[in-house]
């Protein structure tokens, strides 16, 4: 049908990942939670994961053509 679904998936998760990384860096305190005695900047960590997934999808879309 003329749409490679990897484009919107890749773009969306890249955008959301970038937003979460930005928030994790700029609002580090608000992004950090204490779990089992350990501080985790979950927005930064998960933002990087989403960015990686989005990039992987975009790479597939670029290499795969239409």
């Amino acid at each position, binding site marked *: *049908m003329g749409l490679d679904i990897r484009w919107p998936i890749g773009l*969306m998760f890249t955008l959301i990942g970038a*937003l979460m990384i930005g928030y994790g860096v700029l609002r580090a305190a608000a992004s950090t939670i204490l779990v089992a005695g350990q501080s985790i900047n*979950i927005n930064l960590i998960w933002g990087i994961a989403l960015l990686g997934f989005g990039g992987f999808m975009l790479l597939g879309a670029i290499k795969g053509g239409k």
Partner: protein
Amino acid sequence: MQAIHLAAIDYLILVAYVAFVIGIGWKLSRYMKTSSDFLTSARSIPTWVTGLAFISANLGALELVGMAASGAKYGISTAHFYWVGAIPAMIFLAVFMMPFYYGSKARSTPEYLKMRFDERVRGLNAVAFAVMTIFASGISMDALAKLLNQLLGWNYNFALLICSAVVLVYVLKGGLTSAIYTEVLQFFMIVLGFAPVVYLGLKDVGGWGAMTHSLKAVAVNPSSLGLKDAGIAYAPDAWTSAWTPVLAGASHNPMGVDWFAMIFGLGFVLSFGYWCTNFLVVQRAMAAKNMTAARNTPLVAAVPKMFFPFLVIIPGMIAVALTSMPDKNYRIPPPIVSEENYAKAIDAVKSASPSEPVAAVKAVGDALGVKVAADKIASLVAANAGSKLSDTKIKEGLYNSIAENYYSGVILSLIKKYCPPGLFGLALTALLASFMSGMAGNVTAFNTVFTYDLYQAYFVKGKSDRHYFITGKVITVVGIILSMGAAYFAKQYDNAMDIIQLVFGFVNAPIFATFLLGMFWKRTTGTGAFLGLFGGIASSALFHSLTIAHGNLPGVKGGYLHLAQEFPSEMAQNFWLAAFAFIVCFSLTVVISLATKSQKTDADLKGLVYSLTPKIVDNNIPIYQKPAVVGIVLLIVCIILNVIFW
């Protein structure tokens, strides 16, 4: 549960998601030229897309919320709904049934019944499916609007309208193709939105080993957390083993289900009845671009389905483990109590005398309107008498002394506990995505069945394709409006959901017998199928009227004619009802078919019945794409998972 406010980052994530799903609908709208494009995707979609859509359409918000709730109530045994109640049926659909659905070129499962039997069977199935689909969509909408109301304080009507409007826009623009493509995006959103909650929860309880250790302590005294009534105890592995407690008998597992009901009732009748005949999921496979893609669709879907218990059931088990650890300051959410009742209860605590604990407990319990833990209320009253506590402190004490659990709140409570702004927006978007995928699935299945199997078949025959294309679009709008009406109906009546699900059970239980005999026994006649299906539905209602589950009163829960049998749980009653209805439908269909003459010749049935259809030869495709090979591999993995969690 106190409503929380979204941060700007949460809104940004939500808006980005909505923009992309609407964008997909807009992009695909230019390809919608015919009714086939709009209602059946013109059979053009690749396997990996239809496979993920197949599973995503089934992954509604009710499943996410409900499976976490069941994980808390029953533990890992809930995985039976996946490893017994889904995977074998999905493999059967792929290997044995898709060749007939796809090869017959039927546009829907009711249309297959018309080709195989006659208009009567198609009509009965189409009407039942259309009505059930609208109510299923309505129940899901009602549940989501209530969730958003509890979680964010959003107005019920606003939540209902905004979510329905988004689904309407992208389905109206791009039809089934748009629904399928967005379901793929929603699949990834659901997985990536909930995975961090599971990871953080497991880390918080100290890992898998620590969680199972806690659950073993809970199993021997489940009443300590309000999971069961006082006096009920199980073996230590009741929450952590899938099969051992079930094989030990209905009274030895929290589900209250015996092995026969589990394997035959759930694993065969209900499971095959849903996965192999429900047009909502089968429609995704029918949209695939060729026969191999159609057959592989359920197999692609089976891979994530097999591992979903770790995403949707484990959170419930984490919630129980956390509740059993006093230092974690967490409890399974209690039933929602109004602020007005909390205020009354706070006054009751303040005016209660520590020397009369029984009267104090009664006064506080009456004010809250729920069951309370007497010892906790007595100590709260004593603490308040010793040093005047603030209203906030008393309210916190009251919250922790409620002795009932609101299991549907489990997943929301974990999201609130572990998700700061940002991740919260992602998890909330995942919840909305699950709702939208389920609703779009219902709406697209409804508009196809209504347009082709009711409108074109009975009301307006022989019009141009353009006419049915426009009709499909109009019915999409009508379907959304009817779903909203069903949501308000479910909201209006406390037991509406029970009644609707009861009717679902009556209709769904016997249906697989009709399809099974139709596909695999050429002697089955239209009259046999029609009367057998009717008899199966009637036998469901009869069985329900004569049985009840322990703890229920005769009425909407059964036993309203006569009490012939009491089951340990509602789940056991439902599984046995399904088994009974299937056997009645199967037997009636066989007997009536033998007594009636078939209107179809062998030539008519070619491509519709197993014995009269040339077998598909998969010689020209790689071994890893052969449905039979992939199916066997998946079955082996599924068996391994069952053994690991035995």
